[in-house]
């Protein structure tokens, strides 16, 4: 069946609807945080860290720092596409769209709730990175792992929110099985390629990269951490706009154009 009623409710401003989005976002947050993708990865992290701690008797704190940063800033951030995508597509996969089409909440509200719900895993990851940041404070700089800058800490929530927004956009625009995996693999290949390219512009403009200067071989001198943060924020907002555009084209176009311009400006301004 096609040609269902298309919601164009941009003119409807109603306080209960905002409260519905907030209440729904709490449910979506819980669904994402307890998603098996995270749980499996968490078990893996605990196992790795436990094993390392058991073997390393002289520098346990460094083991904890390294594990937290590696997983919170890379592995978990990448796989956060999967829970967000599965939550965003769950109604369609379950064939529940018709039931949800007859309720006051619109698809736009559900998308907004998922985007807000993604704040929960983002907050947990940011807390973990902050702990790592504090643990580093009275230690001399490490030579074999990248320095954890304030900008990298500040970018942590954006990695998760960006991944969730990208997942929602893919779910809204490419509603087919396997798309989240394709998006995830594409993102990984893109980021991995930029690190071997030795091009500062390619590395800095890679999507949702917390550590542009990951190691000495790829050290990028003179880029603006603040503008890089702005660039990541712009990408995140653009992905969120794309996710919401499907159900609210006019308003999202108006919002998306300045966000796009800002992202382009930040992408250019961050370059050395």
């Amino acid at each position, binding site marked *: 069946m096609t040609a269902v*009623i298309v919601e164009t409710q941009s003119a409807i401003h109603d306080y209960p609807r905002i409260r519905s989005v907030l209440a729904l976002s709490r449910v979506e947050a819980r669904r994402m945080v307890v998603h098996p993708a995270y749980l499996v990865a968490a078990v893996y992290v605990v196992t790795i860290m436990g094993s390392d701690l058991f073997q390393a008797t002289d520098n346990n704190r460094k083991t904890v720092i390294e594990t937290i940063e590696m997983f919170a800033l890379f592995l978990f951030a990448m796989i956060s596409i999967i829970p967000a995508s599965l939550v965003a597509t769950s109604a369609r996969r379950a*064939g529940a769209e*018709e039931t949800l089409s*007859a309720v*006051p909440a619109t698809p736009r509200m559900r998308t907004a709730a998922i985007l807000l719900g993604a704040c929960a895993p983002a907050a947990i990851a940011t807390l973990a990175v902050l702990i790592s940041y504090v643990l580093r404070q009275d230690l001399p700089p490490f030579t074999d792992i990248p320095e954890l800058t304030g900008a990298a800490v500040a970018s942590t929530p954006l990695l998760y929110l960006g991944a969730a927004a990208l997942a929602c956009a893919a779910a809204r625009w490419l509603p087919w099985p396997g798309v989240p995996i394709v998006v995830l693999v594409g993102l990984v290949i893109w980021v991995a390629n930029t690190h071997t390219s030795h091009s500062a512009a390619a590395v800095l403009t890679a999507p949702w990269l917390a550590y542009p200067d990951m190691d000495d071989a790829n050290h990028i001198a003179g880029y603006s951490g603040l503008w890089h943060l702005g660039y990541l924020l712009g990408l995140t907002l653009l992905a969120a706009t794309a996710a919401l555009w499907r159900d609210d084209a006019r308003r999202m176009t108006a919002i998306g154009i300045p966000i796009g311009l800002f992202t382009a400006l930040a992408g250019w301004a961050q370059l050395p």
Partner: protein
Amino acid sequence: MTTIEAIGLVRRFHRTTAVDGATLNITAGVTGLLGPNGAGKTTTLRILATVLARDSGSLRMLGRDPSNPADRLEIRRRLGYLPQDPGYQRGFTVFEFVDYIAILKEWTVRRARHDEVRRVLDMVGLSDVRDTKIRKLSGGMRRRVGLAQALIGDPELLILDEPTVGFDPQQRLRFRDMISQAGEGRTVLLSTHLTDDVAAICGRIVVITAGRTVFTGTPSEVAATAAGRVWSSADRDPAADVAWRTEDGRFRNLGTAPDGAHLLTPTLDDGYMLLVGTPGADEVAA
């Protein structure tokens, strides 16, 4: 007061016309939508549930026009809908699913919402399995979960598409009781193939065939359309459109009765059968 006033509803899917000028006038109480497979019942209910837009015709529900976004929102706030094939998200428990729908129906205060979810689960007899994953339930129990979500907020208008599919006899009797209660003071529109359900609980019946309304009336009025067209005979009467052997070993024949036939009192089944299953049915009107 008229809850649903539809005149000449038309809905096409490519070259197929699923609803072809259906006209409905639904008031408070329980109304049954009867019709053969492919008659357009589900498409009609989807239009009334604000899931599908109509191609033409006029429609007012609860005093509002569903093609207007603000009106549609207000209708949805006062509507409960059970689709023919409601899906359920994997991994949700019964309580979580109904709670999720309650949030989508703007029940934002947690305690009040949970009380409401418990109320509707109790109504459909699912309180004991509220913490069970939906995927572990039987088909009939899943159907009741769907019914529970439709009942949230005690909606003024309840639209149920084949609500008793998968129910065992005990569940059907319980459903009749529940719908009879729900129909007091509000409007329930349900589609079904089961004429005994309709006879038991529906005050009015709308018969649809080929996307058009062919009859609107009470169950006894539907039965009355078969007056003089049902007769008994020792053998199958060749003049009958439909005939079957009954408990007493004689044949019950439907069609144009021959002179001198032993006429029987028609039932709802007889009337329905003659309305939808014989040539010229479209010409019968209440």
